């Protein structure tokens, strides 16, 4: 109800102003201009605050979400690196278990089965 009344009043003022615009004196025009500028300033401030708070809210949300994504990515990377390292380690162990690697090892195959060598090593340890 009040809003309708205000709108009607505003329309009557606009009509009066249009009708008597040419007859208004300079002081009234200056006051109207000042009032208009104040109204515009107030409106702009309102808009900026509103947009600013929206941006802060959006950015905060982005940071929170980004942090979760970063943590998940870091965790995935660690798991992946762990998997690769373990596969290489297991792979190497498996490969070096073949007879070929035994034959290519630092000791000849007979050294691994020479009981005389074992006995001699045991004697050597006892003498030390």
């Amino acid at each position: 109800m009040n809003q309708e009344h205000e709108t009607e009043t505003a329309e009557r003022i606009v009509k009066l102003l249009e009708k008597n615009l040419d007859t208004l004196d300079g002081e009234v025009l200056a006051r109207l201009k000042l009032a208009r500028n104040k109204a515009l300033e107030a409106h702009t401030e309102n808009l900026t605050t509103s947009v600013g708070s929206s941006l802060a809210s959006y950015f905060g949300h982005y940071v929170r979400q980004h942090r979760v994504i970063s943590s998940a990515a870091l965790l995935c990377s660690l798991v992946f690196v762990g998997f690769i390292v373990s596969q290489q380690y297991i792979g190497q162990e498996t490969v070096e278990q073949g007879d070929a690697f035994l034959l290519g090892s630092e000791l000849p195959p007979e050294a691994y089965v020479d009981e005389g060598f074992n006995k001699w090593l045991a004697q050597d340890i006892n003498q030390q």
Partner: protein
Amino acid sequence: MPSNAHVIAKSEKSEKTWAELTDNQHKVLAPLASEWDTLRPWQREKMLDIAHDYPKMDSKKQELVQRRLNRWSRMTPYERENARKNYQKFQSMPQAKKDELRKKWKEYKQLPQNQRDTLMREHPEIYKDQELEN
């Protein structure tokens, strides 16, 4: 439990004559060329496994493999199994311990043959005739 296809593949692999081997297998297993066709299927299979792993090794190790292949093929299954077990133990040792054992092996090889024979006689169980038949 191995599948039938796997068993058949293994059987075919171990029945290959020297002439049926590939050029690469010939190259690796050259020290065994003259006796290949007299080897038993399980021996051929093990030697083919060596030929399979051979390209994964560096040239120094490849040379050692070729040099030791003949001696290896003449070892009994018992000796080979013991060698595999002891090789695994050796592999798990720290490098300093490996170096020490390598040095000790060289020293042992410098001992007079009769002294090594005496040490060996104290462990006669490793060369049983029955195992040599396998």
